[in-house]
């Protein structure tokens, strides 16, 4: 695998469907980082992921994975990536032992020892049919398979959705461990922003098929803030500083996109930090002047 700076590069990727367009999506996932891919259901996360995996043909744009073209070098790329979907794609009759035999031949760098270590750690039985596994166990098995062939890039589509907080936390911890070499990268889509807040280095927000924000998580969080004020005071804030305004019977919450500048301009107002969920909510409602 040749040297590369970004594990994933999407440049103006467009895909049109009836009633939905993935519109000129561009973002990069730097090598050695975890990118959180955030958006509400139907925002275009799965379409983007299916496009970069060449499951779906794109209409225009360019995609590079691990420094290589996602169509021309598809086979080479797929030896070095792992994909985890929200549902386990293994037939119910298979056992983890069967999966080891299957993946062992598919991936040149598959390691049985790593796989059995993950099974032990996840307390998954080696010879039990996966049809009898719980949802959490199925996800753990899928992740164990994904992490056992030394993949340089892990792509996960809603992998932690539907899991209880304890299992989610355990899995997130394993992802962080997986990153220790600094050579591996993760793209993780989720609408559970708290998970991404814990582990992501970078975030990309997508809504209605368009990227709203993409950058380092800390910068995104530092740049955004929420001013809590009366509905009257909203008029004092320059509209160009505002992402959107949420109103309720107690007053208004105004999200601003340049916290430092706002702190200087609106000295009398208190600016609270925003989390990723706040940012997602305020950006999703960006088109509306006020929302509640």
């Amino acid at each position: 695998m040749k040297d590369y700076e970004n594990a994933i590069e999407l440049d103006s990727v467009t895909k049109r469907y009836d009633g939905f367009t993935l519109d000129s999506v561009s973002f990069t996932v730097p090598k050695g980082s975890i990118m959180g891919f955030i958006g509400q259901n139907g925002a275009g996360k799965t379409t983007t992921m299916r496009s970069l995996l060449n499951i779906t043909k794109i209409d225009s744009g360019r995609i590079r994975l691990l420094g290589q073209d996602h169509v021309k070098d598809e086979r080479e790329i797929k030896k070095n990536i792992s994909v985890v979907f929200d549902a386990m794609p293994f037939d119910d009759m298979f056992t983890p032992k069967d999966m080891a035999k299957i993946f062992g031949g598919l991936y040149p760098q598959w390691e049985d020892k790593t796989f059995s270590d993950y099974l032990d750690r996840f307390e998954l039985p080696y010879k039990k049919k996966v049809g009898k596994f719980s949802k959490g166990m199925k996800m753990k098995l899928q992740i164990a398979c994904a992490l056992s062939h030394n993949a340089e890039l892990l792509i996960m589509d809603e992998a932690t959705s539907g899991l209880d907080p304890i299992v989610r936390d355990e899995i997130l911890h394993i992802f962080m461990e997986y990153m220790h070499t600094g050579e591996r990268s993760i793209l993780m889509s989720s609408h559970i922003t708290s998970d991404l807040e814990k582990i992501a280095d970078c975030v990309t927000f997508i809504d209605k098929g368009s990227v709203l924000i993409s950058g380092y998580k800390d910068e995104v969080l530092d740049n955004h803030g929420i001013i809590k004020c009366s509905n009257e005071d909203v008029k004092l804030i320059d509209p160009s500083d505002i992402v959107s305004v949420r109103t309720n019977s107690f007053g208004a919450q105004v999200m601003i996109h340049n916290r430092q500048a706002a702190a200087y301009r609106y000295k009398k107002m208190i600016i609270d930090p925003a989390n990723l969920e706040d940012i997602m909510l305020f950006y999703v409602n960006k088109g509306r002047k006020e929302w509640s």
Partner: protein
Amino acid sequence: MKLYRSLVYREFRLSRKYYILITLLFVLLEALVLLGIGLGLEGEESAETVSEKLAGILVTSIVPALAGFLCARDANNYKKDVHSGWASYARVLPATAKQRAFACILLRLGFSLFIGLLTVVLSIVMQSITGFNTLIPTLSVFLAAMALTVLLDAVYNAVVMRTTDQKAFKTVAFIAFAAVAGVAALVSKLIGRGKNGELLDDGLLDKIKDPKTARKLYDFVTSYAFLGISLAAAAVAFVVFFIVVSKSLERREA
């Protein structure tokens, strides 16, 4: 090699029960035929006329024909893959569409070879009982049945593999079944017509009562030419199947 071993193993694990069932069914039916012939010959002389021999061949060919059909048909693996999500997931794996299609063929060929060998053994036993050669005709019938099944399966797969979506599968499978039925009806119509396209309404059994026709037919079905034609048909069918399946697996969502 390791990759093919994995792919074939997966296909085999999915269809293991089906193949065990087919093997048991084949052995049971062949045993019944052997027993029937053995009992039928007791106290009688073995078949002497060509028509009798030909009738014997026809009877003993029914089981290999059925086995050829059952060996070569899809054991519903693609349907299982759509339901589990593997059909879509497989596209993110390093195995290419051609490798996956070839693995699918390898399993069918491997199992067909196994049943083919059983056919040979049983034909030798049959020959020792009846005294006439059933090896070439039964093998030929087995291969011809395989060829036809693989061709029909290629038509089915060309349609059904257009989707990896569980919801759409039922509709697509119905269309595929209709397509196969249409092709099968066309083939049977062509087979049932003479050189000038006229309908052949004489039954085969009536025909073989005529010693001349029976001799011609007997010479053909016991000839290496028949075996060669069947073998070539099976080879062509598998090549067609490989092309259709690999093209279908290569297809990306529009």
